[in-house]
C-alpha cells in the first residue's frame, strides 16, 4: 500500500496486547496506519511518540515491522453498488464480489445540526401488536431490543426489517455467530430482498477490536443513501453489547480508569454518537431518514448494567421480549417496553382512540398480574380478578404474541372486543368520546 513518497518506519518502541508505539513525525490524530499490512489507528500522540491501536491485535508483530501512515481516518467508498453486498469491518467485500468504486468518505463523520432535523412523524408498521399498538415505531427513531442471549431477538428483528417499508436495510453485525450471519443471509435472500440490503459483518471468529468500526461503517453507508439519495434507511445493529465489550478492552489496554462495570467513562458519549445518527430529514433538503433498531443483550435480564443503562438514556425507548407462560409464546412485554416517539403517531396517523385504548389495555393487564400474585399467595380471587386473568390470556394470545400480524385498525378492534367481553364500562377509564363510539355492550 506504501507509495514512493510515504515514509516507512521500522522501529517500534513498545508493544502491548492491543497497541504499538513508535517515534514518528507529522502524524494526525485518528489517522490510519498499516503495521506489516495490519490496519491500526492513531489513539495518542505525545511529542514524537505515537501510539497505534491495532485492530487485529498485536500477536506476531515484530519490533522491526514496517509502519506506514495512510494520512486519512478510516473510510468507506460509497455508491449505489453497495446494495446487495456483504462487507467486513474495514468495508472490504466478503461475498467474493469486486471492491466498490465510489466516493471515499471518512466514517464517524460530523453530527446533523439539530435545527436541520425534522420531527419524526411516519409510522413504521411491523404488524406486531406488541410494537405497533403498544410501542409504535416512527421513522428516524432509534430503539433497541433488550434481550437475554437465548431470546429470539435476531428473528424478530429480521421479521421487523422484512415487513417495514424501507428502501435500504443495513445490517451491522458485531460479534455475531456464524450461524446467525447465515440466518440473516438466508432470510434476506429467501424474501428476495437482497438487492436492498447491505451488511457489515464481524463474526465471533474475527478480532474483537475490529467490531468498533462496524456501526460507523453501517451508518456511513446509511447516511449516503439517506442524505444523497433521500431514501428511507433502516439500520440493524446486533449486538451492541459486544461493541461495548470491545470498547472496554481498548480502554483497559490504554490504562484508562474504568467507571461502572469496567466500562470506559466515555461509554455514554460513545454509544450516543452511534445512536444519534438516527434522523429524519425535512422535505426542504429532500427528505430521507435513518432508523436504528439495535440489540443489547443483557446478562440475566439485568438492565442496571452500564451498557443497557446508558443505552436506555440514549435511545428512544426499548423493547423487551418475554416468554409468556399462559400462552406459551414469545410476547413483547407491555410493561417494560416503551417507544418514546409513539405519541407522534398514535392517534395522529392511527385511529384517535389509539392512545387511550392502549393505556387501558395495559393497565388491565397489570391488574391481571396483581391477581396472579394473589393467586400464587393463596388468596381468594374476586370476580374482577378472575375476569382480568381471562382477559390477560386473550390479550397475550391475540395481541402481544409476536406471531400476530395485523394492521393497527384491526389491533384496536380486537382490543375493544376484549374489553367488551371481559369488562364493565367504568372499569376502563376511557374518555366518553371513545366509549360512545366503540363500547357495544349494553347496561
Amino acid at each position: 500500500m506504501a507509495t514512493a513518497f510515504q515514509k516507512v518506519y521500522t522501529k517500534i518502541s513498545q508493544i502491548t496486547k492491543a497497541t504499538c508505539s513508535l517515534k514518528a513525525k507529522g502524524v494526525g490524530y485518528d489517522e490510519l496506519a498499516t503495521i506489516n499490512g495490519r490496519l491500526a489507528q492513531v489513539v495518542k500522540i505525545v511529542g514524537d511518540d505515537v501510539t497505534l491501536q491495532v485492530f487485529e491485535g498485536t500477536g506476531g508483530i515484530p519490533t522491526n515491522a514496517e509502519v506506514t501512515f495512510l494520512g486519512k481516518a478510516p473510510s468507506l467508498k460509497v455508491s449505489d453498488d453497495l446494495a446487495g453486498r456483504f462487507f467486513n469491518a474495514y468495508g472490504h467485500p466478503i461475498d467474493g464480489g469486486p471492491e466498490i468504486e465510489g466516493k471515499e468518505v471518512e466514517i464517524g463523520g460530523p453530527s446533523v445540526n439539530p435545527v436541520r432535523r425534522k420531527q419524526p412523524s411516519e409510522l413504521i408498521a411491523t404488524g406486531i401488536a406488541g410494537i405497533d399498538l403498544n410501542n409504535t415505531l416512527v421513522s428516524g427513531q432509534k430503539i433497541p431490543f433488550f434481550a437475554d442471549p437465548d431470546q429470539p431477538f435476531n428473528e424478530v428483528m429480521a421479521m421487523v426489517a422484512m415487513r417495514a417499508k424501507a428502501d435500504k436495510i443495513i445490517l451491522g453485525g458485531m460479534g455475531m455467530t456464524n450461524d446467525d450471519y447465515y440466518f440473516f443471509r438466508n432470510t434476506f435472500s429467501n424474501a428476495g430482498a437482497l438487492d436492498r440490503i447491505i451488511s457489515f459483518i464481524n463474526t465471533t471468529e474475527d478480532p474483537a477490536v475490529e467490531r468498533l468500526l462496524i456501526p460507523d461503517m453501517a451508518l456511513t453507508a446509511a447516511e449516503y443513501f439517506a442524505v444523497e439519495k433521500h431514501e428511507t434507511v433502516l439500520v440493524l445493529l446486533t449486538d451492541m453489547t459486544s461493541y461495548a465489550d470491545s470498547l472496554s478492552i481498548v480502554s483497559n489496554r490504554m490504562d484508562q480508569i474504568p467507571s461502572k462495570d469496567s466500562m470506559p467513562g466515555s461509554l455514554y458519549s460513545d454509544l450516543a454518537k452511534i445512536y444519534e445518527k438516527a434522523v429524519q430529514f425535512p422535505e426542504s433538503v429532500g427528505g430521507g431518514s435513518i432508523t436504528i433498531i439495535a440489540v443489547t443483550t443483557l446478562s440475566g435480564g439485568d438492565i442496571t448494567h452500564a451498557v443497557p443503562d446508558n443505552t436506555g438514556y440514549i435511545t428512544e425507548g426499548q423493547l423487551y421480549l418475554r416468554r409468556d407462560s399462559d400462552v406459551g409464546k414469545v410476547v413483547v412485554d407491555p410493561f417494560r417496553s416503551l417507544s418514546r416517539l409513539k405519541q407522534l403517531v398514535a392517534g395522529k396517523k392511527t385511529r384517535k382512540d389509539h392512545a387511550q385504548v392502549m393505556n387501558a389495555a395495559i393497565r388491565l393487564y397489570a391488574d391481571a398480574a396483581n391477581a396472579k400474585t394473589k393467586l400464587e399467595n393463596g388468596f381468594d380471587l374476586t370476580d374482577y380478578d378472575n375476569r382480568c386473568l381471562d382477559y390477560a390470556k386473550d390479550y397475550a394470545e391475540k395481541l402481544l404474541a409476536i406471531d400476530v400480524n395485523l394492521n393497527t385498525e384491526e389491533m384496536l378492534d380486537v382490543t375493544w372486543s376484549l374489553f367488551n367481553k371481559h369488562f364493565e364500562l367504568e372499569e376502563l377509564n376511557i374518555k366518553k368520546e371513545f366509549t360512545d363510539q366503540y363500547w357495544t355492550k349494553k347496561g
Partner: protein
Amino acid sequence: MTKGIVSGVVSNMVTLRVDGPVLQGEICYITTGGDRLMAEVIKVVGSDVYVQVFESTRGLKVGSQAEFTGHQLEIQLGPGMLSKNYDGLQNDLDKMDGVFLRRGQYTAPLDEDRLWDFEPIVKAGDRVQGSDWLGKVEENHQPLKIMAPFQMEGTAVVKSIVPAGQYKVNDTIAVLTTEAGEDINVTMVQHWPVKFAMTNYKEKPRPFKLLETGVRTIDTFNPIVEGGTGFIPGPFGTGKTVLQHAISKQAEADIVIIAACGERANEVVEIFTEFPELIDPHTGRKLMERTIIIANTSNMPVAAREASVYTAMTMAEYYRSMGLRVLLMADSTSRWAQALREMSNRMEELPGPDAFPMDLGALVANFYGRAGYVYLNNGEVGSVTFLGTVSPAGGNLKEPVTENTKKVARCFYALEQDRADKKRYPAVNPIDSYSKYLEYPEFAEYIKGHINEEWIPKVLALKTRMQRGKEIAEQINILGDDGVPVEYHVTFWKSEIIDFVILQQDAFDEIDAVTPLERQEEILNLVTAICDKEDYKFVEFEEVTRYFKKMINLCKQMNYSVYKSEQYYDFKKQVEAML
C-alpha cells in the same frame, strides 16, 4: 497575545507548548487544515498547557499553531436571544450552513443588523452603577433593559444618552464617565464569563412565591417557587423529559431557557417544532417567543456539554438583572457530570466515587447556588428558578450526582420505575418526593394571601393519607382482601382517589395536561371532601372497590372536561350525588 504549538493529542485533550502567559480557563483557537478549533485551558504545567478542545480533533498534528484570546469562556448578552437555538458555546445553530455541523464553524449569537426600538430610562447627569437600567427595548413583548456594564466598578455619571429611536445592538447608546474620569461607550451588548455567578443584586432572600406549573403533583403536592431549585432524578423511561417539557410549556415565567445537555436531538426538535405553535397559557402568545434553547445534544462535542449549562445559567442571570422571572431547565445534569469525568480521566487525576472528579459536589452546589429570587439595586425583583434532571446509573439514587444534588436542591421529584410501569404518570413518587418550601413560613404567608389559609393543611392531610394508604396496601398484600377490616379498604381507596385524581395527569390530553391553580383548588377541595367523609356504610370490601372505582372514573372524566363547562358540572354533580 500568547501563542502555542501542539505537542500532544489524546482524544479531545491537547497539550500546547506556549510562549507567554496564559489564564486558567483561557480560550484559544488551534488551527488545523484550515479549521480553527476552539479550546479551553484546564491545566498548566510549566510551559505545557493542557486544553480541552470543543470539537473533534481528528487529523490534528503535532506542530499545529494555537492562538490565545486573553479571556475565559464568555458569551454575548443583548437583545435578540429570545426564540433562538444555540449550541453550548452560544453559536446560533440556524445561521450554520449545511445539514451537518462543520468543525470550526462559529456563528454570531446576536443579529448585528437588526434595529431595536430603544427608549432611554436615565438622562444625562444621572449617577449610575454597574447593571443599572439605562434604557429599554422590547423583544417578543418582553420589556428588556439595556444596562450599565456589569463589570463596571463604583459609580459613573451619564455623560450622554441617545434619544428614543432605532438602534443596532453595537451602536453606542450612552457614554458614562467613571469616577476615574474615564469615558465608557455603552452598547446594548454585554460580555460575561459563564463560569462566574452574576452578583449584581442587593439581596437574595429566601424564595416564597409559588411558581405555577399547571402540573398538579408539583403545584398541589410539592410546589416549586420563583427562584427556587429542584431536581428530577429517574431511571430512563420514567417520564423525565415529558415532565420537563410540560413544566417548560406551562410554567408562569417570563423567560424559559432549556439546556439540552447531552440528551437526544429529537427532544430538541420536538421543542422547536411544537413551541412555535403552542400558546403560553398565561399570556396567550406563542411559547417560542419566551423560549431559548441551548442544544448540546449527546452526539455533539463532550467538552461543550459542560459549557452549555453555564451558558444557559448566564443567560438566565442576565434576564434576572432586568427584573424578569426566568425558569431554567437543564436536562440532564448527569451528562454534564459525565463530561467532567471524561476530562478528569484524560488528565489522569485521581478519581473520586464512581470515577467522578473529587470536586463534583462543589461544582454542583455552586451551580445550584446561582439560582434565586433577588432584590435588584433599584428595588425591583427578578428570579432564576432552576430545575435539573438527573439520570442515575441503573436508577440507583445512591450515586454521586444524585447525592450531591440532593444536598443543594430544595425540591425533589423522585420518578419511580414502579409507577411508570403501572402507567401512573407523572411517575413522581408521592411519598419520597418533597418540597422544602412547604415548610417555609414565608411561603405559608404567601399562600394565605394568594389562595387561602386552608390550602397547606389540606395538602399535608392528603400527604398523610397517601402514606397511610401505602401502609395498608402492604398489609392487604400480606393478609389478603378478606384478612383486613372493610375500613382498611376504605382508607386504601381514599389514597387511590388522591393518586388517580390529583397526582396522575395525562400530559398528552389537551385539557388534562394543564390545570390552572383555581381548578387545582377545586379538585383539591372535592377530593378532600371525599376523603374526609367517614360515614361510608360498606358491608364488604368489593363494594368499596366498586364504589371508589366509579368515583375515580367520574373524577377523571371531570379532569378531561373543559373547566366549568356543562359537561364538567354534570360530572361534578354526579360525584356530589354519590357522596
